């Protein structure tokens, strides 16, 4: 497949290798992040008038799921401010590794038993159970953001590199999953060059930059999932062997190497969560909303049970049956577990489309709160930009169902293509039949989303 290396453009290379542009953007993001915590703790408790809710769950979320993830994969991680303070402490430096001081902290390796994304998946599911209050109460959003910050600092002081990003961040987990669909990748130009480079400065670090903060050897990268696009390898490779490629979208999904059960389950959890959120938050069922909000009550416990059963048992269980049905239509040289895991990657484009469709609904309806929150971020009666008293105005809501339909249908078609490519890995002329039940599963899920979001 054809790729275009952005690093071949001298200006792009200069911009990306230089630490300052990334550092400045991250500093601005850190200021915004800290201000979101302050606004959440000390600003108005009215979510739609508080910077923390409006900027985190409308502005940032819209930028992330509608733009950053589909187009740039882990592009957000390049500028994420959350690991910055921990890294500063760990590196004993703000900007670069000049002087090569030994890292501060215990520098332990992350436990082998936890080297997966199960913790991230669990963290996401845990947050999802409380999402009704996290998304709407500024104080709770602030506590969650502060918890992320302190966990990242703690992880940097105990473990080497960016352990929080790699193994704990619930947002990073799903960004990694969906970054496989993005048309952008960091890869090496020639693996043979890496093989001859004995020092591996991309992993160990050098005067020019840190060893991969994500603990990844770029020469072995076959998919985006665990590459945080932090650009350190671009700085540390003395052989000019790192490329940032524009590539066909979803190229990683046809990559048979490195498929894992934890990633497969992440796909189910994300798809299932989008389905539950669409029903609870965007549906006309007030009792469901109240149940999701009444933390600790019996209705909430029932909601929790239903949510967990749906995303961890029902959806994977149903998919397992469909995957088995596919194997009965055509022989496979893989065992059932490997088939189940492999075909789950077809849910990546479907899930991404579902999240985009879900987000379109509330982002367009509530984007006008951004102008009010900019002018009066704490809800204290300020009017910095003379837009504090703008009326709530839903934008383009008449077109949102059309957009949602298009996005869902494209996601379905993409999932179908992915499933059939996975089937063809079996190299037998009837292998495509294995993909029939998977396509039907994706069709049923898409119809379900259409019914919830457009129906």
């Amino acid at each position, binding site marked *: 497949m054809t790729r275009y290396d952005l690093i071949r453009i001298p200006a792009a290379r200069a911009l990306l290798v230089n630490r300052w542009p990334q550092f400045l953007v991250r500093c601005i993001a850190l200021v915004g992040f800290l201000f979101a915590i302050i606004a959440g703790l000390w600003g108005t408790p009215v979510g739609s008038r508080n910077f923390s809710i409006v900027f985190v769950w409308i502005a940032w979320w819209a930028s992330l799921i509608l733009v950053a993830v589909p187009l740039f994969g882990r592009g957000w991680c390049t500028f994420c401010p959350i690991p910055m303070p921990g890294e500063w402490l760990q590196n004993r430096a703000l900007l670069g590794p000049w002087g090569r001081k030994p890292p501060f902290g215990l520098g332990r390796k992350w436990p082998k038993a936890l080297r997966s994304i199960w913790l991230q998946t669990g963290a996401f599911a845990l947050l999802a159970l409380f999402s009704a209050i996290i998304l709407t109460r500024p104080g709770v959003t602030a506590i969650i953001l502060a918890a992320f910050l302190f966990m990242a600092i703690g992880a940097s002081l105990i473990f080497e590199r960016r352990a929080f990003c790699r193994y704990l961040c619930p947002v990073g987990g799903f960004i990694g999953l969906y970054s496989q669909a993005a048309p952008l990748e960091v890869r090496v130009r020639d693996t043979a060059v890496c093989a001859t480079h004995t020092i591996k400065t991309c992993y160990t670090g050098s005067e020019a930059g840190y060893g991969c903060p994500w603990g990844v050897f770029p020469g072995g990268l076959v998919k985006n999932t665990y590459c945080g696009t932090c650009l350190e390898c671009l700085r540390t490779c003395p052989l000019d062997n790192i490329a940032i490629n524009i590539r066909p979208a979803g190229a990683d999904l046809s990559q048979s190497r490195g498929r894992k059960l934890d990633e497969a389950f992440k796909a189910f959890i994300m798809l299932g969560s989008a389905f539950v959120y669409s029903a609870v938050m965007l549906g*006309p069922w007030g009792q469901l909303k109240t149940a999701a909000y009444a933390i600790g009550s019996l209705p909430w416990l029932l909601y929790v049970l239903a949510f967990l059963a749906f995303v961890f048992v029902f959806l994977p269980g149903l998919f397992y049956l469909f995957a088995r049905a596919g194997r009965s239509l055509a022989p496979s040289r893989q065992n059932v577990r490997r088939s189940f895991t492999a075909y789950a990657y077809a849910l990546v484009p479907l899930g991404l489309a579902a999240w985009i469709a879900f987000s379109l609904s509330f982002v367009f309806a509530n984007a006008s709160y951004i102008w009010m929150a900019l002018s009066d971020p704490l809800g204290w009666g300020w009017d910095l930009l003379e837009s504090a008293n703008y009326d*709530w105005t839903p934008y383009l*809501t008449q077109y949102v169902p059309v957009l949602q339909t298009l996005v869902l249908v494209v996601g379905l078609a993409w999932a179908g293509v992915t499933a059939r490519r996975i089937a063809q890995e079996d190299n037998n002329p009837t292998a495509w039949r294995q993909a029939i039940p998977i396509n039907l599963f994706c069709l049923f899920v898409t119809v379900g989303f259409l019914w919830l979001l457009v129906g």
Partner: protein
Amino acid sequence: MNAQITVASIAHPRLRHWPWFVLALIALAITFMPLPVGAGAPVSHDLRIAASQYNFDPGVIRVNPGARVTIELASTDVVHGLYLDGYGLEVTADPGQTATLSFIADKSGTFRFRCSVTCGPLHPFMIGKLKVGNNTLLWRGMALALFATAVGLWRFR
């Protein structure tokens, strides 16, 4: 000799992509083909919607296309509003009071109505649906989904 000979493979290069043109035409037909918007006389509908925190009751209302709709919004706790997507109409009701909104349902489909006055934490998610005749967008979406699945299986068989 397992090579499969198809019309497309032996056709003039300019004609090799004809199946895709046909498929695109079918997709366009599904997208834009006129569909019945729904039967039923355009009678008047007088509806009462009770608004309480995060719930419209009823949450889903159905009317015939062209009907004159009068909605009496009754707020049972705090101030609530009702903004109707697609129609761009809005009404606000004070606690214990009612307010009325009248309009002709001259656009068919399913339209969300949402609370337009901040009424509590879950306010952005206080949503209901107005269904005017058939939801042709939903049917088109389902048909396109089915078509995409069928084409995919046919193409890769």
